[in-house]
């Protein structure tokens, strides 16, 4: 079966510099690098989730590996997209001690998980959630410690969730 992972690699390779720049406003500017590193490691891996986590490292390695695991379950086991994303959001919230409105990846993931099983609707909801992070004050992650807690800056992690779900929707469409 075709995997969605190569499409994610391609998508994030194109976004690497942009994601670094987004992250630099409130963090250390390496979010694009770590995402690409993790995604490349999934190709051909026996356990793509673990491969991503190990290669990416950092908080994002652990947290984004959960999103990838959810999409793996949808594509390989026919699990329902919204249910998997809701479970992923719960786990990420527990591990990262974060909730909706904290200006994190959850601000894209939670609305996405509430958008029903259709992948297009999910991707659209994620994007709207991401755009809403601009006015949020960060309460988790390195952005929390920045002057003004990052208000006025879009969150890099929420952007990555948006791109992952958008690429996944595209992949599902192309597969049909």
């Amino acid at each position, binding site marked *: 079966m075709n995997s969605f992972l190569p499409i994610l690699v391609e998508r994030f390779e194109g976004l690497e510099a942009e994601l*670094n720049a987004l992250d*630099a406003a*409130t*963090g*250390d*500017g*390496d979010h694009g*690098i*770590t995402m690409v*590193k993790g995604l490349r490691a999934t190709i051909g891996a026996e356990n793509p989730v*673990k491969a991503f*986590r*190990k290669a*990416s*490292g*950092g*908080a*994002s*390695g*652990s*947290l984004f590996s959960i999103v990838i695991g959810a999409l793996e379950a949808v594509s390989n086991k026919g699990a329902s997209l919204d249910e998997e994303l809701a479970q992923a959001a719960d786990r990420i919230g527990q*591990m*990262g001690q974060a909730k909706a409105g904290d200006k994190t990846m959850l601000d894209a993931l939670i609305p996405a998980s509430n958008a029903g099983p259709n992948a297009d609707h999910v991707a659209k909801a994620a994007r709207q959630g991401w755009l809403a992070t601009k006015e949020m004050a960060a309460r*988790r*992650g*390195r*952005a*929390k*410690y*920045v*002057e003004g807690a990052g208000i006025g800056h879009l969150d890099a992690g929420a952007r990555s969730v948006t791109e992952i779900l958008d690429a996944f929707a595209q992949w599902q469409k192309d597969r049909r």
Partner: protein
Amino acid sequence: MKKLFNSKETMADDMIDGFVAAYPDIVTRGKNPRIVRRTRLKTKEGKVALLIGNGCGHEPIAMGFVGEGLLDANVVGDVFAAPSQDLILEGIEEVTGEAGAVLLISRHEGDVINGNAAAMMAQDDGLNVKPLLMYDDISSAPKGQEDERRGAAGTMFIYKVLGAAAETGMSLDELYALGEDVRSRTRTLGAAVTPGVSPLTGESMFTLPDDEVFIGMGVHGEPGVGRRKIGPVNELVSFMMDELLADREIATGTPTLVLVNGSGGTTQMELLTIYREVAAILDSKGIPHLSPMVGSFSTTQETGAFSISLFTPTQEMLAFWQADQRTPNFPNIYGGKGS
């Protein structure tokens, strides 16, 4: 900005190669090449293991502190990125014996998430591991929310005190309690002057006008929380000491340990001048200070920044702080004034 490395992909591993080649009688690689451990481990003979995982780019912390009297191992992540939970677990497995292990975690998001996950996996496998969160930076959360603060240079007091204590055969539970006690007695505040350059991106990690300093910058160059116009250093230090002593009062006559840490681009000349001002302020308040540590130990590339840490030890903690150690990069601690 020019940087000297072979490739971004290999920079962490190339550095570790150099480190273990330079100090082979003290440190060696573990089964996973990202684990740096003591060449002669005592943790299978009843000593509690002490280890930490962290992103690299902050040397000499933490791998430079592996050795007798300090850490048993350091799990090295990529530049500024916590090692994965899987890698930290391998580090725990490598050094933990019957007596158990303290996994030190400097309170930063990735380190906390991956460290706690690794400790849970190790406990599931039957290893007696306790994760100890370390936090001391008063700029990162207000007084009363100490456990929301992030780890900064003052965490080195915990490394050293627990490292020496573990060597005496102290039990896991006692060590953990001692670590919490050191943490409760330590406060740190930092100030940044010039940005460092990320070796990953080649970009400056923050921007700052020539006439300003940032108070409370994070160790990864996260922009600070408060700005001031730059002036004579005694004014800056006086402001910072007022903040530190307001956060945790130190009574006249209480022996105090001072750590002035540089972030890589602040010279020893500057750091010693800062120590001069700290010492003068403590003298004026009748607070005896002894056995200081002044130098660049927890760094962020060539960042021009420093922090002041104050720690009021018990007699027992002081003895552990002053105890001999044999590591590549932890400095000798001398008596200093008042001892």
